[in-house]
């Protein structure tokens, strides 16, 4: 499973989930149309840290 996160023009989060050929796609796989992969939003690890200390 590959997630590609983008922002809509109004700032809302938009996520594409891609699966290929009946097996999970790994992050190292090439995803057609994933030209904007380099601009994907990073995983927010800060939130997790805050959550754990809640």
């Amino acid at each position: 499973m590959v997630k590609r996160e983008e922002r809509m023009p109004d700032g809302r989060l938009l996520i594409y989930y891609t699966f290929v050929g009946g097996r999970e796609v790994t992050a190292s796989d090439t995803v057609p149309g994933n030209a904007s992969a380099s601009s994907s939003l990073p995983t927010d690890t800060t939130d997790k840290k805050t959550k754990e200390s809640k």
Partner: protein
Amino acid sequence: MSEKRWNPILCEWVVTATHRQDRTFLPPAGYCPLCPTAPGGFPTEVPEPSYDFVVFENKFPSLKLDPSEPAVESSALYPVQPSLGVCEVVLYSSEHGGTLTDLPVPKLHQLVKVWRDRYESLGARPEIDYVFIFENKGEAIGVTIHHPHGQIYAFSYLPPKIEREIAGEEKHYAQTGRCIHCDIVEDELKQGSRLVAESRDFIAFIPFYARYPYEVHIYSRSHRASLADFSDDEEVDLACILSEVLKKYDGLWNFSMPYMMVMHQKPTDNKSRPGSHFHIEFYPPLRTPSRLKYLAGCESGAGTFVNDTLPEEKAAELKAVAVGAL
């Protein structure tokens, strides 16, 4: 305008969301905002020409991560808070037609993974204490867009029904040291009369205490607190029994059954919840092919549901519906 207003009598929040009055309502064919944007067509919510699954923040959310300040002042009698949270839409397919029932098991398995990812991602946020995944299907339920989709409300607090469920779980756990849901699964398997379907890892039944005539619950046989606890094999098996239940619904009267489908699982508030047990509940509003079960005076005013049917009889009806190969 959106805010949480406290009901000091029932001790629960009510969310006001006046902007939702203007949300898309049954758009004509060719103007579905959830279909991929067509070349030269009007811009929809999804720019890509096709997709497996898409999740996006609702254009008309009841809850937001950056909510506006309440429009009214909070008081000792009437506390008011910003409506903090997240509302997401989950698109099952880029095809406008069809329903969840039409998805083949491998695709349902993928959807289970998407649900799991949303549970984990949203639940990891410090603001989010409960990730509520659900689907409203059919105009009888009030669906305003027919493109196959579900929704997720990520709450910053425990919603009242969940809070009540947890209170029951904790009471049973304190008395017996056991998960009440595990005991229910064991009893349903022993009784057998309310079972609708069984698979290796899951069972589907109409509970002893069903509020709706065709209210099916899907439970894992083993104790699993949330989607995050399932193995890959269990995810596949969940997709199988989900497909079977959905096909039984549509096969019962040979039309697409309207329903509310909700998932209950462990809160994400980082508290110990030994009684949490993942399950899916379906609330179909029909009691016959043409008659709705209304939430009328007794249900809405007193909170007591009157079920005009026996769960054992309705379970037998659904169990008898042949679904063929999944």
